[in-house]
């Protein structure tokens, strides 16, 4: 970022009374940038006049490694893309490889995938609300509430897939291991307890005076700009655009479950906050329905080869509704064991396109709240 260009005041500020700009780097090591994300901010006093995001501090070359390993070899790497929601990453990758190779998935496996994806959404939204509150200054306490719930859900993942965060659980054509009846019991108990935590959390946050003052009318996004800039997920629905890939694509038996899609009106930080809170209620609803209807049966499609898996020549783009937005995998196969091109469509990377438009005119403290409400995870932003 060449400095001279950054410190030039925009045309609106020409009179001598307006003072000079100060360039501050809200840099890679910052308490509330959710990892190593950097923003070069030109400040006029406290007002943000220009904001240039700088990426790449966690660019771990996920796609280059994806092209050098086999299809199955990339599955554990997808856990490390968005390290809060490894189950949904696995599902997105498995979905696009199944679309590439034309593999069917048995019913029980689809139900298990829906249950695990919704559990991931619960813990991701709870953690996000905790981080957003600590960005606003309530350092740590709401985060402790959120992480207490997250630990329960991580226990479920660990007993099922063996690892707390890096589950590597799904395979092309199903899931690696079946969930036993005791696991379903524990999951049902946790899901039944979750609404109590939700009410407690919402009483703590949503009607809180300070939260309302700090988030309402902050970072407003118009619906047209949201669509044109490729926003997806809660950020898009906060602007009132009804686009949820679970409803649009109807993948993974979602049409069988009755759930509503929350929509916001103003597109500001408070609406994004509400989106996550309401989506958690919907996810609990889906989980309850899925746990009743789950049939018995195999979890793995027997006809799929695990070892030398070679999909036919061609390309495919599969996408799911991840907790942060539309997570897609674009794969081009030349018939070999390694994908010819392995591309991840990262929702939080593209949701950051409008970060500058949201932050202009706000104070420095609001930039942190806006960044927190976008909900980025650097493993997925920089890939």
């Amino acid at each position, binding site marked *: 970022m060449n400095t001279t260009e950054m410190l030039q005041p925009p045309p609106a500020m020409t009179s001598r009374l307006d003072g000079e700009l100060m360039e501050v780097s809200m840099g890679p090591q910052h308490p509330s940038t959710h*990892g190593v994300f950097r923003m070069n901010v030109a400040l006029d006093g406290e007002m943000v006049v220009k904001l240039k995001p700088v990426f*790449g*501090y*966690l660019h771990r*070359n996920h796609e280059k490694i994806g092209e050098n390993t086999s299809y199955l070899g990339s599955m554990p790497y997808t856990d490390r893309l968005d*390290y809060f929601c490894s189950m949904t990453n696995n599902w997105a990758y498995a979905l696009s490889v199944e679309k590439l190779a034309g593999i069917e998935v048995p019913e029980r496996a689809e139900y298990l995938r829906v249950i695990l994806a919704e559990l991931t959404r619960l813990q991701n939204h709870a953690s996000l609300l905790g981080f957003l509150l600590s960005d606003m200054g309530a350092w740590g306490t709401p985060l402790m509430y959120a992480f207490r719930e997250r630990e329960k859900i991580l226990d479920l993942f660990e007993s099922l897939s063996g690892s707390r965060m890096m589950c590597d659980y799904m395979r092309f054509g199903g899931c690696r291991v079946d969930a036993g009846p005791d696991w379903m019991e524990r999951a049902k108990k946790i899901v039944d307890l979750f609404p109590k935590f939700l009410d407690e959390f919402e009483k703590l946050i949503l009607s809180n005076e300070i939260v309302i003052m700090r988030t309402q009318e902050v970072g407003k996004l118009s619906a047209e700009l949201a669509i044109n800039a490729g926003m997806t997920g809660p950020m898009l629905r906060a602007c009132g655009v009804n686009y949820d890939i679970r409803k649009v694509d109807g993948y993974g038996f979602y049409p069988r479950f009755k759930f509503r899609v929350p929509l916001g009106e103003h597109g500001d930080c408070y609406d994004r906050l509400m989106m996550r809170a309401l989506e958690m209620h919907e996810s609990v609803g889906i989980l309850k329905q899925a746990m009743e209807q789950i049939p018995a049966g195999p979890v793995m499609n027997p006809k799929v080869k695990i070892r030398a898996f070679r999909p036919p020549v061609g390309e495919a783009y599969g996408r799911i509704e991840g907790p942060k937005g539309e997570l897609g995998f674009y794969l081009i196969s030349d018939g070999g064991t390694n994908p010819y091109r392995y591309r991840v469509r990262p929702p939080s990377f593209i949701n950051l396109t409008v970060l500058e438009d949201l932050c202009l005119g706000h104070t420095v403290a609001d930039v942190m709240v806006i960044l927190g409400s976008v909900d980025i995870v650097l493993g997925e932003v920089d890939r």
Partner: protein
Amino acid sequence: MSDQIDGGLRSELQRQGIWVTSMEELYNWGRKNSIWPLQFGLACCAIEMIATAASRYDIARFGGEVFRPSPRQADLMIVAGTVTKKMAPQIVRLYNQMPDPKYVISMGACAISGGPFKQGYNVLKGIDRYIPVDVYIPGCPPRPEALLHAFMELQRKIDSQKLTGNAKAEHLDPMQPSEFPVPAFGAHDLEPAANPRLFQPPKIERS
């Protein structure tokens, strides 16, 4: 406890109600039980670090829950996550800006040697190429208990540091350099690719 005072004598005196200590024990005891980590997460290991600081695994039992955002007030840098080549100069600069009795925990396989992302062109194969590391924690990500064990390991190391004599701790020795050169961004790679003073890999004997 350091071996200057004979253990038997110490327990005998304590039975008589006299408590004996030395300046070094007091100095190390104070530092050991209140290590302030620098708030510095890179990737997935940072989430496990936060989970360790959260209520279930509670790093506060070891006095380490005060995560300071600024390096000026921190004395432990937990390098938690993949160190990329674009981030390496920043890490060395942060390490330089920390006040002197400072320690580094290299958390996770990525910070030790590049981990699963070893073949990446933008991944630094381990942070010990540029800054000295005190405790390594393998794992991807290491469980919170592993981080707590590393914390205890670091406390043992602090406890055994000497105050005087030629084997005294590095930060007390004026001869030791207080800063490590910050690598620059080159056309293809970082210049220099590693700090030769710190990183001397054994050469392979051609068999």
